[in-house]
C-alpha cells in the first residue's frame, strides 16, 4: 500500500506524529472523517450561532478549512475529531465576532426543533425547561456543554479543543451541568 506523510515545516520527524494520507485517495479518507463528524459539528456550530443559515455556512467553511489544512494535523495534539471541532469552534467564534452577534449567545435559542403534536408532552416540557435554563449559563459554559452534548466529544477531546487539562475540562463541565440542573429546578 502506498502511504505518504504530510510534513510540517520546522517539526522534527522524531517528535512529530504525522497524519497519514493515502496517496490518490486523500479526499476519500477525509470523507470518512467528514461522515463521522459532520452532524455533530453542525449541531455544535448551530448551538453557538443559533442561526441555521449561518451554521451551515460556518460548518461548510470549517470542513473546507480542515480539508485544506489536513496536512498540518498532528496526532500528538489530540484526536482528529478534536482537531476538526477546534477549527469549527474558531470559525463559529469568528463569525460571532464578525457579525457582532454577542446578543445571539444570550438570547433564547431559535426554536429549531419545536415540539410537535406528536411529541410527548413531558419531553417537550423538559426540553423547554432545559433551553430556558441554558440562558442562565454564561457563554463559556454553554460552549462547554455544546461541545459535550451537541458535539459528542469526550472530556479529553474537549480539553484539547479548549486548551486546558482534562481534569479542568471535567471540573468545568461538572460545574456547568450542576448549574444547569439548578437552573432547571428553579425554572420548573
Amino acid at each position, binding site marked *: 500500500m502506498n502511504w505518504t506523510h504530510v510534513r510540517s515545516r520546522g517539526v522534527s520527524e522524531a517528535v512529530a506524529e504525522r497524519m497519514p494520507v493515502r496517496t490518490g485517495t486523500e479526499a476519500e479518507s477525509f470523507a470518512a472523517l467528514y461522515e463521522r463528524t459532520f452532524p455533530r459539528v453542525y449541531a455544535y456550530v448551530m448551538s453557538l450561532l443559533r442561526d441555521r443559515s449561518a451554521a451551515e455556512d460556518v460548518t461548510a467553511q470549517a470542513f473546507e478549512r480542515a*480539508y485544506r489544512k489536513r496536512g498540518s494535523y498532528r496526532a500528538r495534539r489530540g484526536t482528529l475529531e478534536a482537531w476538526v471541532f477546534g477549527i469549527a469552534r474558531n470559525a463559529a467564534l469568528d463569525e*460571532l465576532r464578525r457579525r457582532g452577534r454577542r446578543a445571539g449567545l444570550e438570547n433564547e435559542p431559535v426554536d429549531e426543533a419545536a415540539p410537535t403534536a406528536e411529541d410527548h408532552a413531558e419531553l417537550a416540557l*423538559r426540553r423547554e425547561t432545559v*433551553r430556558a435554563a441554558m440562558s442562565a449559563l454564561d457563554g463559556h459554559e454553554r460552549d462547554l456543554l455544546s461541545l459535550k452534548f451537541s458535539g459528542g466529544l469526550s472530556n479529553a477531546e474537549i480539553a484539547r479543543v479548549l486548551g486546558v487539562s482534562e481534569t479542568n475540562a471535567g471540573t468545568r463541565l461538572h460545574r456547568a451541568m450542576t448549574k444547569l440542573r439548578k437552573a432547571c429546578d428553579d425554572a420548573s
Partner: protein
Amino acid sequence: MTHPDSDPTATIERDLRAVDAALEDGAATHGDPLARELQELALALRADAAEPGDEFSAALGQRVKAGFPAAPGSARARAEGARTWLRELREDMPPPRRMLPAAAGLVTVVLIVVGLASVDLQMTDSSDDGGSGGGGASVAQDSGGGGGGEGGGKAEVAPGAGSGAEALRRAAPPGPSGFAPGTPRRRVERTISMTLEAPDAEIPRVGQEITQVTNRHGGFVLSSSLDTNDDGASGYYELRIPAGRLRPALADLAGLATVSSQSQSEQDVTRRHVTAQDRLEAARAERRSLLRRLELATTDEEAEAIRRQLDIVAAEINGLRGLLRDLRLRTNYAVVTVELSGSGEDSGGAGAGGAFDDAVDDAGDLAVGLAGVLIRIAAIAVPLALIGALGWAATRVLRRRRRESVLA
C-alpha cells in the same frame, strides 16, 4: 475508599462517569438521584442537538467528495494552480539525497563569499570608524573620543597580521567622512607608527622609496636614519604627510615591504582649536576697543596705561596665533614614523616555506573571519528568534482571548 458525598473530587468523577454512561446507554439508570438527574439532563441536551438539513448535507457531502473544488478563475484556483505547478516541479527534481552534495557545495560557496565580504567590510569599518568599534581578531581598536570634545583613538595591528596593504587599511585613519555628527570640521592629530620588514639587502632601496612616496604625496621627511652593517640593516624615518593624502600614502608605504607591526593614535583637538580661535577673536576685539580708547585718551597717564594693556593683548594675540598655527600644522599633517627592520634574509628568502606559512595564516584569518560572521549572525538571529517566538505565543494567546471574548 472515599465516599463520593464526602469528597467533591470523587463526586465529580462519579457524576462525569454517570453522564458518560448515560450517553452511551441512552438511559438514566444511576442509583444516586443527583447523578441520575445529571444523566437525564445530559440525555435531554443531546436530544436537543440540532440536525442538519438534507439539502445542506447533500450539497456539502458533494463538495467533500469533490475535494472542495475552487471556483474557476478565483484567487484560490490560481493559488492551487501555482501549488500544483510547484508540486510537479518538485516531483521532476532529483531526490533530495542526490541534491545534497550540490546543496552542500552551494552553502559552502555562499559561506565563503559571505565570510570574505564580512572580512572586507570589517576592514572598511575599521578604517572608516577611526578608532571606534572594529572588533576583528587581529585588530584591536580603542576609542578615546568623546566626552569633552577632545579625545584620542588608537589602532594597532598585531605583528604578522598579513599583507601590508590590507593591514594598513585596517588601521588607516578616518577619511573626510569620519567627522562626528554635528561637528562640521574636526581637528584631529594623527600619529601612525609602522614597522616594515625587508631582507637586509633591500633596506637601502626601501629607504629611498619611503622618501619618494612621501614626496609624491606632498609630504616631507622630518628626520631619517639608515644603518647597514654586518649585523644587519635597519632604518628609521619620521615623516609628515598631508592628512588628506594619508590613506593612499600609507597604502603605498605598506606596499614597499612586509608590515610587521603598525599602530595608530588619534587626538581630537577640535575643542582646543575652537577655544583658541574664540580667545583670539576676543583678544582682537579687546585690542580694537583699546585702540578706540587710546584715541579718546585725554591724559598721558591714561594713554600710557592703555598702551601697556595693548602690549599685553598683542602678546596674547601672537601667542594664540602661534598656537593655532601649530594646531593646524599638527592636524593638517599626520606624523608617520616608519621603522625599517632587516629580516636577515637575502632578497630571495621568501620561498615555498613562506608561501605555505602565508597560506596557513590566510586560512586562519579566513576561519576567524567566518567565525566572526557566524557569531554576528547568531547574535542577530537568536534574539530575533526569541522575540519571534514570544510574539507568536503572545499572538496565539491574544487571538484565542479575542475569539473567546464573545463567550464572556
